[in-house]
């Protein structure tokens, strides 16, 4: 019986090792922030590499979507979480056993680790059976797990551990101390004196009183007096202690690799769902996108920038959602309009939903049809790149050249504020050429620009404009709507909010 991976349909090694390089696009579209936030509480699992490696194969993506849907069921989610918590405890106990030298104690930590491990496997096996997962991943894992949990090796491990643990936890003994001598003996029903005292004075009790108990410094190790006492205890109760020693020898490596791999890989799903839960509660929608390479007619309804939404929801601020829709031969969304109107956010969110979709994750939005791209290229203004304008322009041109020479028709291209460092006339000329090349490639993309001319370049470009709400004092709505670029829109609405439009002035005068 074999199980490949809960993350990869074809199994195989996923990205491993610390320090997975952050891909170039991630910083531009704030995807690095998203990954940081998702993985923050799970550093020990080393998950970032998974999030920086979108898949290329549709079936692999569907495999993950199925698993993720299963994990959205409360029962299954709780069961898997419980399993992971238990596995964490197992690791802690083993770490403890490794640190301790005294055999009678080391062996006990080892036993504890094995006990929790057995519980974890059995609990998860039972829960998976009852929660009837639908995904290929979980069904295969469940079969594998049941098989493993019923294997002779595992059952003997589990039963032996249980027996010894029971015997050890039930034994009781007394230590009497007089001067420098201590004496260890089996417990013989001696009376609890603290309780006797409390009972005697009980009648005066008026209400809660201070707790005078001390905080003793607890550490897992032992001093030689404790070791001596434990040794005496092992002499008083020889059977369980000899069984304990034998257990350690007989089960040196009880952890099974596919189980520990599952524990790590399933964190990918748990981490993402945990990250999106508060946004979900705030009323934002997520959906499983349709992904395809056969058409570039992509759309999304009510999508949003996940990195920004994460911050806003934490601050209890509202999140603005947007739509996009490309049809027929439309390829490039050109966004113009007032600054601080949400243009860049829109561009980032466009790229984010594609990356997330190709990771097999539910994406921001009520519904989405997305493109199964092969590479994502982003071109954002880099403020720190060069000191003078000439250097900056040169740098920009070089980066743009690199993108255009690598990109193909399956690429995704996001361009933010192209050639802002040169004159309007030069910028228009150069940008027109660049967008022309992108259109030639037939690649999909978004271009944020102050150059209105780009918006109406071709039937392949779609013009979208950031808007302002006239009823509030030039407040921005962060809505990006599909309409022809009009550099005057912002100025007019500002005038309207001051009641200075032509009509208004006619009325007032």
């Amino acid at each position, binding site marked *: 019986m074999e199980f490949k991976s809960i993350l990869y349909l074809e199994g195989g090694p996923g990205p491993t090792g610390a320090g997975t390089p952050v891909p170039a696009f991630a910083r531009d579209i704030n995807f690095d922030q998203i990954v940081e936030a998702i993985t923050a509480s799970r550093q020990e699992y080393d998950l970032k590499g998974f999030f920086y490696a979108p898949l290329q194969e549709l079936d692999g993506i569907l495999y993950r979507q199925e698993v993720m849907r299963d994990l959205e069921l409360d029962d299954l989610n709780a069961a898997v979480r419980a399993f992971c918590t238990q596995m964490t405890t197992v690791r802690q106990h083993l770490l403890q056993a490794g640190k301790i030298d005294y055999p009678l104690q080391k062996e006990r930590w080892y036993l504890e680790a094995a006990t929790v491990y057995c519980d974890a496997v059995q609990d998860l096996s039972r829960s998976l059976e009852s929660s009837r997962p639908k995904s290929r991943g979980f069904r295969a894992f469940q079969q594998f797990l049941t098989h493993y949990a019923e294997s002779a090796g595992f059952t003997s491990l589990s039963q032996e551990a249980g027996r010894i643990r029971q015997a050890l936890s039930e034994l009781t003994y007394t230590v009497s101390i007089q001067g420098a001598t201590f004496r260890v003996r089996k417990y013989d029903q001696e009376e609890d004196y603290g309780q006797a005292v409390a009972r005697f004075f009980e009648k*005066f009790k008026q209400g809660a009183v201070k707790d005078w108990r001390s905080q003793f410094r607890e550490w897992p190790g032992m001093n*030689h007096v404790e070791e001596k006492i434990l040794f005496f205890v092992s002499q008083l109760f020889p059977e369980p202690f000899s069984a304990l020693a034998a257990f350690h020898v007989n089960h040196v490596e009880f952890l099974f690799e596919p189980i520990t791999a599952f524990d790590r890989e399933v964190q990918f799903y748990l981490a993402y769902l945990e990250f999106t839960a508060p946004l979900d509660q705030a009323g934002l929608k997520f959906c499983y996108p349709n992904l395809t390479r056969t058409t570039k007619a992509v759309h999304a309804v009510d999508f949003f920038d996940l990195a920004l939404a994460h911050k806003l929801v934490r601050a209890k601020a509202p999140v603005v959602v947007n739509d996009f829709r490309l049809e027929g031969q439309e390829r490039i969304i050109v966004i113009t309009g007032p600054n601080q109107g949400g243009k860049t956010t829109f561009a980032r969110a466009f790229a984010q939903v594609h990356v997330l979709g190709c990771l097999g994750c539910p994406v921001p939005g009520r519904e989405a049809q997305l493109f199964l791209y092969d590479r994502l290229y982003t071109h954002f203004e880099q403020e720190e790149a060069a000191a003078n304008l000439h250097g900056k322009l040169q740098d920009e041109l070089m980066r743009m050249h690199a993108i255009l020479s690598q990109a193909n028709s399956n690429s995704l291209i996001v361009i933010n504020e192209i050639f802002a460092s040169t004159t309007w006339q030069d910028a228009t000329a150069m940008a027109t050429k660049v967008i022309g090349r992108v259109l030639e490639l037939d690649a999909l993309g978004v271009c944020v620009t102050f150059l209105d001319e780009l918006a109406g370049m071709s039937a392949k470009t779609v013009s979208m404009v950031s808007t302002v709400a006239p009823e509030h004092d030039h407040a921005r709505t962060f809505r990006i709507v599909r309409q022809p670029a009009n550099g005057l829109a912002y100025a007019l609405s500002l005038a309207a909010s001051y009641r200075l439009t032509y009509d208004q002035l006619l009325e007032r005068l």
Partner: protein
Amino acid sequence: MKAHLMHQDRDFNLRAPAPAQAADLVQDLALSTLTQAMAGGDPLLLEVANKALLDSSFDLDEIRFRQDVLKDAIRFPDALREAYNLTGEAMAAEKKLWRSHTNHPTLVLWDSLHLMEIVVTALKRLRHVADTHGDRVQSEGLRRLFTMLRVELDDTYFDGIQQHLKNMQFRSGILLATGLDPGNKGRDYVLCLPKAQEVSWFRRIFRKRPKDFSYTLDPRDENGAKALSDLKDRGLDVVANALGQSAEHIFNFLVMLRTELAFYVGALNLHDRLRQLGAPTAFPVPLPSRERRQELRGAYDVTLALNLGRKIVGNDLLSDRANLVLITGANQGGKTTFLRALGQAQLMLQCGLFVPAEVCVGHLCQGLFTHFKREEDASMTRGKFAEELERMSRIVDGLKPDGMILFNESFAATNEREGSEIARQVVSALVAKDIQVAYVTHLYDFAHGVHDDPRLPALFLRAERPVEGRRTFKLEVGEPLPTSFGLDLFRQLLEDPLPSAAGGS
């Protein structure tokens, strides 16, 4: 063990929130003079007096219960004062204890033994008080308390305490019982008393000795000694905690007892003061709150008497059906003073105290409220009137049928016609809702209107104008007269060459 001297079935709760109108009552009825006389400089007496006075009881049995205890207290003042003082001494001794801030078992044990010493001394003295007075007191409250002390704190119990204190010295070492935790270390150490030795030498010799293992540390093994004492501490910890908490329980019992006694000690203080002044006091006869019979004779403003340091003129109020008492008449004729006397008598009745009067029969009211004219921000007439209405609105939130409200020149911050109309509407509504109203007013329109309104049966009292310059402070039954005597007073104060003598307002 409970003292239950304030309520028959529960502790007196010093932490209970004061009623919403408490601050107004204190200010309008000048209660702080009264409570300070009860306290005589003792902060606990002050706190309890305040609490008890403002937290009116609505239970006739409870009021009689307290009256009975108070009567015992007046008969045997030493019993209560001694019990109050000895608990106070225990409190003071406890304050002087230097208590360690870190919870180390040995220190906790040490501190607890000291506190135990203090509280056990107090318990013994308390037993003595109970032995001395137990058979003489007549009230249910004190009989029950003294009997409880004698039964629960008998000699056997004190012997038991001594035995425990002796055990706590652990002369023959300590015995810890424990099991193994998940790291094979001892868990939840429990300190036990070793089983008593077999008495018979024969059985001692032939009894099968339980298997044991022992080890003696090398005298130079300092780390071992440290480890062993640490282990010992874990056992001592639980016992030290038990003793510490027990001592604290007894201490809290003494605190609670002292709190319950405090009300009566305060009452004794007040009783002594008034007797020195020759001012009369009477135990009131409480009636159910539905009753409307009221008989007050020689009722006086107790705070004025305390402030002046002499007996003052009392007034009478006899009414058997009216919900409304309307007081009009001369300025500085004792109207406000009388209103205060009414309010004070009501609060004192409803906390179980005697009242400042010669005779008092009165029903319980479901909450007493005061609405007195306030002197502040007199410049802003408009704002002042709004403030009055706002205050009235808050009072209405808390008013219930059979409640009582005392008005002192209310709604006079506007012109007479408007003020009268509002007063009439407010009062008519209150009376219709069976709320008792006593109203001091100069609003002639209002007073006269009430007089002519058959739907508003009222008792009218009138302050008389000074006779030959001397004020009598006596109120007589009489309908309102159209003019007030303010003009006289104005003339007297500002135009007469002679300054007027001090007196009530």
